[in-house]
């Protein structure tokens, strides 16, 4: 008999019970938040001076939103609620204009997060006894470590391969008979094409499930992955500001992702007015983290667009479900699972004296993977007349982009005047990728 729930009582709790948990959680979060320089000021401005000012879930709308800019402007310690000596983990993501965002975790925070990830894993039907090959990047990015800790908590056998080196991934899948993998949808498609090319195909593999995330994709993409590998694929949602993976996860019925509402309060708002929208209406996802003391986050505007459904799920869980992410309210790009803002690329390019002020990036598909091409112009005044200068310039741009956005771009150098001029609304991003 295999367990269907990680924490049945909470996962199937009646709505009023969930709301009670949320109010309790929020009181705690407000207490934590008041200890930070940022929220200390911000909450008082909204006349919230103590957790007692907050008594029912409807009071949530009294609280101000938090944005990515708030995180950047208060880098590095403006949202830190505990003494640094209590922090056991730091995760960070690169910022839109060079300033990163940082999230701190206490030991309890890591434990609570891992518990929620464990719950997510069990909901998909994966369990102790599964061999889990984690193909998501380890490091400051939360995708790798988040699932790693949750999977260990479940008792799975974890293989922390991290991303890339596809031939080795395939070998490890065979050697250790991996049953569950975690990757981006585009990487899985790439993985499949490599398996196809390398002889015996899927024979000798023991794969039965995959968790996919970090990249919006369609139902058709899921079906394609499931068909290609003959496995079940479960969508997941998370973002580093809200711990990382495990904010929402699909259950065995694969019909939208359960948001673990005792850990994260989810709202959908109209991005223009900030008003809450009812279930079924698409808007911006706003999340409050109830399980992290070191970096409290209240009503965080994710800039992801989606909608909620609160109809009962066949699995028996009562937590609302979030649709696939349908888009963004800003210009963030997701390139092979990595979040990139065009402004980050601009920032890097503009620091290089040998290039002009015009630039353009193009996104295409190279097989299943995304290909980023960065187009820049040579700055006439800095041109020495040597081909070696141009080659060095190209490598430098490549290297700096690789270091800061963790993507290997193709760099094309153009004659001055080739690209649209920088004034006005020049089109800087050309995304030729088919919508998946």
């Amino acid at each position, binding site marked *: 008999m295999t367990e269907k729930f990680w924490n049945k009582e909470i996962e199937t709790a009646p709505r009023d019970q969930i709301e009670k948990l949320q109010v309790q959680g929020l009181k705690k979060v407000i207490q934590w938040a008041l200890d930070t320089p940022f929220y200390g000021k911000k909450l008082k401005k909204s006349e919230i001076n103590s957790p007692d000012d907050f008594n029912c879930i409807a009071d949530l709308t009294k609280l101000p939103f938090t944005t990515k800019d708030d995180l950047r402007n208060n880098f590095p310690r403006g949202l830190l609620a505990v003494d640094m000596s209590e922090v056991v983990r730091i995760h960070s993501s690169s910022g839109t204009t060079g300033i990163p965002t940082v999230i701190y975790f206490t030991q309890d925070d890591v434990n609570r997060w891992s518990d929620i990830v464990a719950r997510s894993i069990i909901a998909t039907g994966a369990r102790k006894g599964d061999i889990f090959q984690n193909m998501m990047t380890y490091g400051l990015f939360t995708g790798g470590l988040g699932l790693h800790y949750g999977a260990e908590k479940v008792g799975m056998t974890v293989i922390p391969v991290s991303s890339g080196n596809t031939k080795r991934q395939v070998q490890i899948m065979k050697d250790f008979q991996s049953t569950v993998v975690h990757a981006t949808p585009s990487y899985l498609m790439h993985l499949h094409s490599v398996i196809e090319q390398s002889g015996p195909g899927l024979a000798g593999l023991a794969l039965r499930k995959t968790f996919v995330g970090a990249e919006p994709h369609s139902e058709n993409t899921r079906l394609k992955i499931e068909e290609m590998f003959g496995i079940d694929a479960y969508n997941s949602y998370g973002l580093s500001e809200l711990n990382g993976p495990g904010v929402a996860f699909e259950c065995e019925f694969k019909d939208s992702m359960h948001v673990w509402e005792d850990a994260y309060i989810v709202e959908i708002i109209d991005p223009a007015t900030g008003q809450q929208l009812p279930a079924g209406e698409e808007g911006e996802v706003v999340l409050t983290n109830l399980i992290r003391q070191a970096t409290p986050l209240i009503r965080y505007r994710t800039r992801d667009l989606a909608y909620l459904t609160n109809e009962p799920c066949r699995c028996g869980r009562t937590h609302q479900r979030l649709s696939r992410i349908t888009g963004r309210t800003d210009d963030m790009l997701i390139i092979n699972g990595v979040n990139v803002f065009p402004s980050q690329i601009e920032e890097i390019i503009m620091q290089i004296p040998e290039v002009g002020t015009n630039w353009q990036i193009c996104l295409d598909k190279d097989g299943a993977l995304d290909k980023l091409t960065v187009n820049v112009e*040579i*700055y*006439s005044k800095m*041109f*020495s*007349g*040597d*081909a*070696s200068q*141009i*080659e060095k310039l190209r490598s430098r741009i490549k290297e700096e982009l690789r270091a800061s956005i963790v993507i290997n771009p193709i760099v*094309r*150098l*153009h*004659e*001055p*005047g*080739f690209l649209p001029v920088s004034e006005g609304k020049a089109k800087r991003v050309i995304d030729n990728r088919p919508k998946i």
Partner: protein
Amino acid sequence: MAKQLNVFVENRPGRLESVAKSLRNSDINVRAFAIQDRGDFGLMKLIVDKPKQAQLALAEQGFACAMKDTLAVSVPDQPGNLHKLMAALAENQINIIDAYGFVLDPSKQGVCCVEIENLPQTNAAQAVEDAGFTILEDEQLYNL
């Protein structure tokens, strides 16, 4: 030392035409040219009668264009002379970035234009002259 214009050109149709057009419109006479191909771009190397004006004309059209020193060597048009020139440079450990040659007067005179790595730090001119070659000066080259 003779001057050569190095122009950055993308590898796509019409770019060389555009360079040539700028030069024509400014009444520049091209004495010699070559293309250094580097895949998706190339450098067009030009020896012209009025290098300064040519550079201005190209810059005005937006071209990235630099004026470089080149060693223009007069080479008698007979078997073995290219080797003799190359040997003189090789013996002195002088590295060539790019070079091109043309015959000026069949079986009498040819010219070899050689771009030397770190030219000012080398004894390239001396080595070439010691081997018995004549280096063409600006005017000699432009008025071939």
